[in-house]
């Protein structure tokens, strides 16, 4: 064993240590990010579940105008959805053209989930008995 060999071996080992440390740090970072994403997904699911529960529970008179029902649903969702934790951005918007409410949730790392809710699908608006009566009258 001479000095050259020791120096070469030390340099090699130190280089490998540096490389391994770098790779380990990046994998730890990726794993932390994955865990954070998983937590965010859980929060997003909780928001969607809360919105679905509200759609089932909402006890409002059937409105013939779906635009008005969408506005009401929008304000009810805004009031009753659980607060989002840090790192998650919630956007609740009304889509008047289709009488829908859009719920968007954006998180870190490009996570974006969005759903649209129609009050008509929850039986909160739309033609009811009167519509059928009109058609029956028209047929006569």
């Amino acid at each position: 064993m001479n000095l050259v060999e020791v120096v070469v071996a030390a340099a090699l080992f130190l280089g490998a240590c540096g490389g391994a440390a770098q790779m380990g740090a990046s994998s730890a970072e990726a794993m932390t990010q994955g865990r954070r994403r998983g937590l965010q997904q859980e929060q997003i699911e909780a928001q969607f579940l809360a919105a679905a529960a509200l759609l089932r529970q909402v006890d409002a008179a059937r409105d013939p105008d779906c635009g008005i029902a969408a506005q009401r649903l929008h304000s009810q969702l805004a009031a009753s959805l659980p607060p989002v934790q840090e790192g998650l951005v919630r956007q609740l918007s009304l889509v008047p053209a289709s009488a829908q409410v859009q719920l968007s949730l954006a998180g870190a790392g490009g996570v974006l989930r969005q759903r649209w809710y129609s009050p008509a699908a929850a039986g909160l608006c739309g033609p009811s008995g009167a519509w059928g009566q009109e058609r029956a009258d028209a047929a006569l």
Partner: protein
Amino acid sequence: MRRLLPRSLPRVGVVHRQRNGFALPIALGGSLLLLISSGSLQLLALQSGVRVAEQQRQLQREDVLASAAQQQVAALATQANCLLAVELAAWAAVAPSCGLMGDQLAALQQGQVAGQGYRVAAYRPQTAMAPFSAELELQLTGDRPWRAAFRLGLAPAGEAAQQLQVTAVQDLGLRGVRA
């Protein structure tokens, strides 16, 4: 020569030992072990990243299908509630009596949510006895035609018992990819 030979032998031995030093093999082995272990850790992290990304895409597909169901049921409830009690196969025959033209009916059987197209794959009402319900299946168009099912709660619309209205939509989950 006789005097030189005994002296030269140990020198040869020293040179031989220098070539077989233990520091370099140990360093090589250690480095390899370190790199392999950190490499496999990184591979694991990459795999978990790929899995998370795929899970994310799947959840986004479910979002699109759930939103499509809301849109589709709203369209049926507001524009064509006379079709609520009719199977999909009979829609074309019943549509004219509801005042729906061919293109209106075609528009009712497909739609778009967040840039993703979908179509109605099946509609099976159950109106033999109360509580009335219907099963709606929607399928994404495109290269991954995922299908999802939804149950509609139906109720007679006021006094006109012939007419139904939607009371709720329940997500029954994904039904796989079908051509």
